[in-house]
């Protein structure tokens, strides 16, 4: 697998660099990759379904949830295949279930973040990182309140604008660091130096 990854990666990289000549090759290979990605995703979903079916067959603790999953999956899949994925009624039902669930889940995150905010200093203690984090959070929370007419005061506006640029420094450093790490990891794949977990 390592050799295949290295060979295919090097060939594709070369095709990217010589793009005007190899653009059709790129087109074909990327089509293969798209189909393969879709199959991989389908295999993952199938594994999930099979796992839950196994839980039900064995009678594992919590198989009720597996029953719910299988039932909803089967209903969604069967109706989608029969009526088509663009059917209006079908999409209404999907929207009616998925939209409130996901929205409520993200709203729950806001409630959980309240307890995280009160614990963060108790858990992490006082350090440069936590103090700067706390002060920055307070500042931006205050700026987002919109209580004060900042835009009307030029000095205040300049100060606020400068303050809003402060996260750029850290974000840029994080982006460059993450990018360097990703490039090194990708180069290791191309050179066949993938580290396998023992």
């Amino acid at each position, binding site marked *: 697998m390592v050799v295949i990854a290295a060979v295919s990666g090097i060939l594709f990289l070369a095709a990217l660099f010589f793009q005007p000549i190899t653009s059709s090759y790129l087109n*074909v290979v990327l089509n293969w990759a798209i189909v393969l990605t879709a199959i991989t995703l389908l295999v993952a979903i199938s594994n999930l379904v099979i796992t839950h079916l196994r839980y039900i067959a064995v009678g594992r603790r919590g198989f009720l949830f597996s029953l719910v999953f299988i039932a909803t999956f089967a209903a969604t899949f069967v109706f*989608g295949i029969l009526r*088509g994925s663009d059917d209006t009624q079908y999409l209404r039902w999907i929207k009616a279930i998925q939209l409130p669930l996901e929205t409520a889940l993200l709203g729950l*995150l806001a409630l959980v973040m309240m307890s995280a905010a009160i614990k963060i200093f108790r858990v992490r203690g006082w350090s440069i990182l936590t*103090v700067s984090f706390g002060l920055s959070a307070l500042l931006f929370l205050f700026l987002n309140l919109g209580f004060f007419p900042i835009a009307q005061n030029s000095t205040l506006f300049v100060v606020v604008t400068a303050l809003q640029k402060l996260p*750029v420094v850290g974000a*840029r*450093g994080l982006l460059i660091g993450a990018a360097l790490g990703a490039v090194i990891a990708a180069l290791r794949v191309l050179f066949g130096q993938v580290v396998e977990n023992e």
Partner: protein
Amino acid sequence: MPDLNLLLTLAGVVLSLMVFSYLLGDNLFFGIAMYILAGVSAGYTAVVLVTKVIIPMMIMPLADFPQIPALLALVPILFSILLLSAMFTKSSKAAGLPLGFLAGLLAALSIAGIARGTLAPQLLSIVNSFDPQLVVSEGLPNWTAIFQAFMMLLGVIAVLFYFHHRSKTKNSLQSPDLWLDGFSGVGQVFIGITFGAVFVGLFGTALSALIASLNRIIDFVRLWI
């Protein structure tokens, strides 16, 4: 027969309340709600993949057999068969071929994209902030711009140094120098500021979702008042 919209709204409200029941602890209702979400999401994704990807891109080109597009379409079919074999055999080495192909392709894309799309522009942006046209205004130095440029350069280097210094001090037993600790501290300050901004942004997004969800419930309740 009740209005379908009302029924769907009721279903949405009930599901929202089931999710919020997590505040009382992990319970049956929350679990059912999560597994309903997982089932619907997985089912709909599978439907879209089958109807909009597999059939039109893998099966339908075979109709042109034995033309070149049909022959080329056999390659992903072969890859798919090898990938499917991994489902039935625990230690299937055949699945390594398509997965290796994908891994190599993604690695090559990463190298090209990161180099062109992030590393070069971001580093050039730091350098370009020292552009004379920016740091000099009307023949006089623009101290604000200079200060911002230096802050940007110092901050980025300090952030990168903090991660490097942190990994190094974790592995070594030697006590680091004071100036190294100080420079690492500067990096921590900028990282803390960024994390604070990200924290507020995340809370803002979650708060918006919470407001929308509660609004839906309140509107439903108002229907019956």
